[in-house]
């Protein structure tokens, strides 16, 4: 099968790979680049476990062709912690016990970060609707929502402090 050469930036570093035209970005990340933090829960864009940020937009990587990523900036869960330091969202997820099995967690973290990047002071309702595309079957969402609100508050403080 004819393969396409794709050049991207993943978590700030250049990344190239060969893909077949039908291959999704999710499969390219997992199988070609070995970045297995993004998960496949459904393959139809209904669970959000494969969430990544593509050129600044939150997307389901299972609904993007790898070939479409040519020249794009891709951010995945693997790039969230910086220099051995967990991102405040990751830290709050741990403190609030906002995960049980943890399978949906990378997608929820990527989606939550995308929310706080555009809306640093979301209401509970705004958080719930923004995250409606990220299914979690373990937690009932309660602790996840609290963790995101708490992380948002901490990030606001950091900003004002800075």
């Amino acid at each position: 099968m004819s393969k396409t050469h794709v050049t991207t930036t993943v978590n700030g570093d250049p990344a190239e790979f060969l893909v077949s035209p039908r291959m999704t970005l999710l499969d390219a990340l997992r199988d070609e680049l070995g970045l297995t933090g993004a998960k496949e829960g459904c393959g139809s864009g209904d669970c959000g476990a494969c969430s990544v940020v593509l050129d600044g937009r939150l997307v389901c990587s299972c609904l993007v062709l790898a070939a479409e990523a040519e020249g794009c900036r891709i951010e995945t869960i693997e790039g969230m912690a910086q220099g051995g330091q967990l991102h405040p969202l990751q830290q709050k997820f741990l403190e609030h016990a906002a995960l049980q099995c943890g399978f949906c967690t990378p997608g929820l973290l990527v989606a939550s970060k995308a929310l706080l990047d555009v809306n640093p002071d979301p209401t509970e309702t705004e958080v719930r609707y923004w995250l409606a595309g990220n299914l979690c079957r373990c937690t009932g969402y309660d602790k996840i929502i609290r963790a995101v609100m708490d992380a948002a508050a901490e990030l606001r403080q950091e900003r004002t402090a800075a």
Partner: protein
Amino acid sequence: MSETLEKPAAPASGLNVVGTRPIRPDGADKVTGRAAYGADFNMPGQLVGKILRSPHAHARIVSIDTSKAKALPGVKAVITGADFPPFLADELIEGGEAASSMRDLAWNVMARAKVLYEGHAVAAVAAISNDIAEEALSRIVVKYETLPHVIDVEAAMAADAPLLHDHIFTAGVETKPDKPSNIAQRHRFARGDLAEGFAAADVIVEGRYTTKATHQGYIEPHACVCAWGEDGRCDVWASSQGAFMVRTYCAKVLGVEISDIRVTPAEIGGGFGGKTTVYLEPVALLLSRTSGFPVKMVMSREEVFRATGPTSGGVILVKLGAKSDGTIVAAEVELKYQAGAFPGSPVGPGAMTALACYDIPNFLITGWDVVTNTPKVAAYRAPGAPISAFGVESAVDELALKLGLDAIAIREKNAVKDGVKAAYGPTYRDIGYLETLAAIKDSDHWKTALKPGQGRGLAVGFWFNVGGESTAAVHLGEDGSAVVVTGSPDIGGSRASMAMMAAEILGLPVERVRPMVADTASIGYSMLTGGSRTTFATGMAVVQAAEKVVAELCARAAKLWDVPVTAVEWRNGQAVCLDAAKDAKPMSLATLAAQSARTGGPISAQVALNAQGAGPGFGVHLCDVEVDAETGAVSVVRYTAAQDVGRAIHPSYVEGQVQGGVAQGVGWALNEEYIFDANGKMENAGFLDYRMPVASDLPMIDAILVEVPNPRHPFGAKGVGEVPIVPPLAAVANAVRGAIGVRMPDLPLSPPKVLAAMDGKAG
């Protein structure tokens, strides 16, 4: 060995670790994407395995032609049921959900003469790529002779129903039937005189309630990588609730030695009971043996819905008789549960739990286990209990309305307590049901009035909780840190509780204890993680192993001080010399560990046990809903769940279990259901139309932890994971009854049904 710890529960005071909320030891891996789940592992040279599934709900397999698939370049193996060892006689094996039928398991993994549900596996291929594997599947020619199918449980019980199996004769009836039937078994639990009881009743309510089949809905699809060595030694990497269960089942299905299979547990992305059996592993192993390469298999979400889980759809008939003061004097409950393609619905536990919260002198509970042309049901959180509780708790709500009693009063009046004989037999000990009712009565939620247009519902639930076989090892490092090894996959944070219990006994900070879940060759046998047994039973093994380590530490200190071991005591991580004559400074665990080589060698201990005496759990749930009068859309606006948890080892994860169970129950009540077309094909095999609750569907869920310690656990723990899914179905339905003034007996309470019910009332 089998033992029951009779020591009293440790007092809440004097505990340094248990009851606190440390960060879970596996947390960093899970928030950074490093944690490796079933599909995140690869072996060099692995092939892609795929399964061909039946398009028919019920059909005879006339022939399977795999030649065109085998001829396709890149295809390394093609197998069918004929390639598996045959099962002439049935055989029961332990290891999973109590005893399972070997033959049924094997036939579910790969169909033999007949396909029994849409999605039933009929053949499998292994190829060098996903595309080639899919192409190969499309080249397998299966000739079917379709047969009439049956999905509705009552239709399947009818005398003229299409028969799934000709070897099933209804068990549990006085005389063995002479004709085969879809009714695999009848369960009965009875006490007193039913006729007398109803005769003495001032008020009688009767109802017929139904629930639909629902799926566990774990977000991680089943996945495994299997390698069959030329020497017959096999390696399995799989996501499951029990690596030893996978080992036993694979060995039996494939007819090999248990010790030839090593199963390494991957991180598991949710199970809820649905990963207490095998689907892919034996197939992947056989493909590996046939091809000579490792084989990786990952289910699609559609396959997960069509071929795994779900739990039963059921019919619940309830008749209750009570005195005018609310005392229930008679109860008759009949349960009809879909088992799916093979016997084994959870109607047994459904029947045993149905009246477990009530002290009723006269009752008869009958349960029917019925095979249907749907996927073989798998355990789902408190298997069977939510279904019977939906009927009984709706009926109790009706009774309360008739008698003008409030939802708590009628339950208090009939509540079971210590010394009362449970409807399923045993006499209760150390239960916290009344305390849990009191906690709700005392809650801000119960005391807050409803807004106009809202309805409030209350329901209660019960689960036995179980113990069982577990092995745990505790090893000290020479620097005084510790490793805790168990064979119990961590599906909800149990590594945290294991580390905490060990740290409590050893007197170490929890950060210095690293908990691991070992593969089947590296730790002794442990039953699967399920039935809310792990913190109780495996926790008991961890505690006893830690106590052995402490005993050894004291012995080493005694040697060093040259005193009898009886003169040494362990206090807060230090050996203390009781012999005043010796002016001996206490020795820390670290000091003793550092000297272990010179004092007798490494310090470590392993305990294998079969824990008995798990404490039963009770939950009381309170739910407020709003109903859109023009569309019938129901929204849950407030929810509070109280539960007796014995003692919460890590309160945050106990709350999480409660909140997660509530969310699953609310989904079951409002939107989740298997929808089949006229041909018995599932119409909504995906997360789009199988509607699990999303974040915006739910309010915060208040969890109230009631702690009535279980004296048979060193820290008083009771299982917590099952109970929370039992009350929500009825709690939501009772709330909708309150909001619209009409009883809705058929789940799910989807908008069209609710609107129709409101019309019925208006008209």
